[in-house]
């Protein structure tokens, strides 16, 4: 039976890593009869089939340069269908977490109907306490969130349509594709990275053997202390998301200040995590019963205590400020140097640039 598997996320369940894995192993997958189509306008290799999801939903990513033209729905759908038909592989893999949040399941189904494939939907779900932490950290990282973690959690719990309420969208997917075609898997933050890939491959009918290459870790979690610090800073900055995100550039990844090492701390205390999971207990049990035929959706994490990140301290804020300023200072020096080089051969009228106001000593 020819299968077409739509990996639909959810967000914060290793989708970026999975997409990197699929891209890196495209040839190996093809050897095994699995096509992961990446060549058309429906795919951005680093983020899977999100252009297709946006085209189907009529949206565009907030971070995208407004000047950049993105493909429309018809163009995108025609391109992916043509590609699948042309290759005619026994199995097809499509992946973007944006399907879960952006695209009505019926629309998703229609997009791939009639190609001669048995359609399946693969969903990874993460315990809501971990999911909310990770979602918040990501929102802060991209400058989308200015509220405190505590108020974010409150808001999410109060809103019955918020992301952590997995049951309603799963029901809609089941209605569109058939409950038997809904493949549910769980994701936990402490699981080994290989488990994500092996679970994915197992779901689509493959084994993670030694031929597969594991991608480097990407989209790694921020230390909780840094998330809190960034959120506190962004709460002070007015303007658009892109502006706030540009502050983060100076404090993330290679620029991360030494005051924020990797840590085991979490934003949630064990008690708060329990309270969150209690809010979703009934719903998760229903998902487990309906789609997995078992009682519990998530196995106990095995970790009952952990350190909790405190609000930013004066020392952390000072380190962030120094780090931030010095990075910007160096960039400004480089820009001045470039300007100086551009001016030097053409003018002969004294200092090239005005003094930058530094006092010297």
């Amino acid at each position, binding site marked *: 039976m020819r299968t077409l598997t739509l990996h639909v996320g959810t967000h914060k369940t290793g989708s970026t890593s999975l997409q990197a894995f699929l891209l890196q192993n495209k040839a190996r997958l093809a050897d095994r009869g699995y096509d992961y189509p990446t060549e058309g306008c429906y795919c951005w290799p680093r983020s899977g089939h999100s252009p297709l999801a946006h085209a189907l939903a009529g949206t565009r990513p907030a971070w995208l340069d407004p000047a950049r033209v993105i493909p429309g729905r018809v163009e995108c759908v025609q391109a992916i269908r043509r590609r699948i038909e042309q290759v005619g592989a026994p199995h097809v893999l499509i992946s973007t977490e944006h399907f879960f949040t952006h695209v009505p399941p019926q629309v998703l189904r229609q997009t791939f109907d009639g190609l001669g494939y048995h359609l399946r939907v693969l969903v990874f779900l993460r315990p809501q306490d971990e999911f909310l932490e990770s979602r918040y950290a990501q929102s802060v990282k991209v400058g989308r969130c200015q509220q405190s973690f505590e108020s974010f959690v409150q808001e999410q719990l109060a809103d019955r349509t918020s992301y952590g309420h997995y049951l309603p969208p799963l029901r809609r997917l089941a209605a569109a594709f058939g409950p038997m075609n809904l493949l549910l898997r769980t994701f936990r933050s402490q699981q080994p990275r290989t488990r994500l890939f092996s679970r994915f491959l197992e779901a689509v009918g493959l084994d993670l053997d030694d031929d597969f290459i594991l991608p480097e870790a990407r989209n790694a979690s921020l230390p909780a202390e840094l998330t809190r610090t960034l959120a*506190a*800073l962004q*709460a*002070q*900055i007015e303007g658009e998301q892109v*502006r706030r995100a*540009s*502050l983060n550039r*100076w404090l993330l990844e290679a620029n991360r200040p030494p005051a924020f090492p990797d840590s085991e701390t979490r934003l949630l205390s064990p008690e708060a995590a329990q309270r969150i999971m209690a809010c979703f207990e009934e719903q998760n049990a229903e998902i487990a019963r309906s789609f997995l035929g078992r009682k519990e959706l998530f196995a106990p994490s095995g970790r009952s205590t952990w350190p909790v990140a405190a*609000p*930013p*301290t*004066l*020392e952390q*804020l*000072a*380190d*962030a*400020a*120094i780090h*931030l*300023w*010095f990075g*910007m*200072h160096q*960039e*400004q020096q480089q*820009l*001045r140097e*470039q*300007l100086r080089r*551009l*001016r030097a051969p*053409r003018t002969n009228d004294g200092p090239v640039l005005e003094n*930058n*106001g*530094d*006092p*010297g*000593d």
Partner: protein
Amino acid sequence: MRTLFVHIGLPKAGSTSLQHFFMTNRALLERQGVAYPAAGAYHHQVAQHVWARALKGPRYQYYWIEPDDARYHVDALQQELLDHIAASPCPTVMLSAEELWHPAIPPKLADAFADGPWTTKILIYARRQDHLLLSAYNQCVKTLDPRVVDREHVESLEVLVRDELASTRPFFALYPTLRDYAERFGRDNVLVRVLEREQLVNGDLFDDVLSVLGLRPDDRLERPKRLNASLPQQLIDVVDQLNRRSTLPRGPQLSFNYRLRHLAEMMPLQDYAPLSAARRREILARFEDDNARVAQEFLDRSDGRLFFEPWPDPNEAWAPPPALTPELMTRAVARLWEAEDARTRALREKLAQRQQELGGCER
């Protein structure tokens, strides 16, 4: 006979303002017979700081001067300065550097200028010690330079005050150093002025210094804006915290501190009194006799009253300064980033514009 005025401070008693005044009005003052030498290696920014620091000793010199650079050796600087003084046709010469306020300086200055064809007059603006200590501490934080008060390290305002009160020769004790100057240059050649509005000519520092030089107030002389002004205490706390955490090299650190000063224009900051009235009275009591001798010997005031400002009221309400909070620091970091971001964007735009201009020319 020419007159050489040497303004020796005090540090934190209007020196920067005076130096800007001399520098800005250099040409006009020269036409009125007052030279302000500024064309040599002895000069930095607005005064003869390099020479004064060299005179004090190598460890006081600017960080950006290589210790082995012969151009900045004290003798070379001294000679260059003397040459420029000699070359000036002006009957009066003014030198200014608050670094000259130091017990080690009077004999060195006497050696430097004793043989010249001029009368040397030492000019000092005195300021009350409670104000001086607070202002000097703030300057140490702002400039990362405890040498402002001739120390290797200043842990806190309270430690500075405590050490100054306990010292047998406090840095801001006026009499001993003025006496040393008087012994070498003559008592009549040590001119003590007091930085209090009611004691300055026309209540104005610049009119006052002009009167010392024998000049009348002149509208053509440009008055500098308020310079090196004190920062609100909350900002001093922010800068202090950042200095303590920083491992930046000295040059970038100074640039950083300079940027931080502008936070005062970007966010509301409280200015509170870090010293209680009781503590300020202790400071004044420590210097009371010393100040009285200065008033008697250098200003001929038999009542020994050097400063007219009343002592702080011991019953004045006062609360210990509030601790710096992460919330305030967060706001400061955000404003700092905004300012730097604007600066970076402006530079990028300038570069893009320049590149476009060049592209246009080439077409």
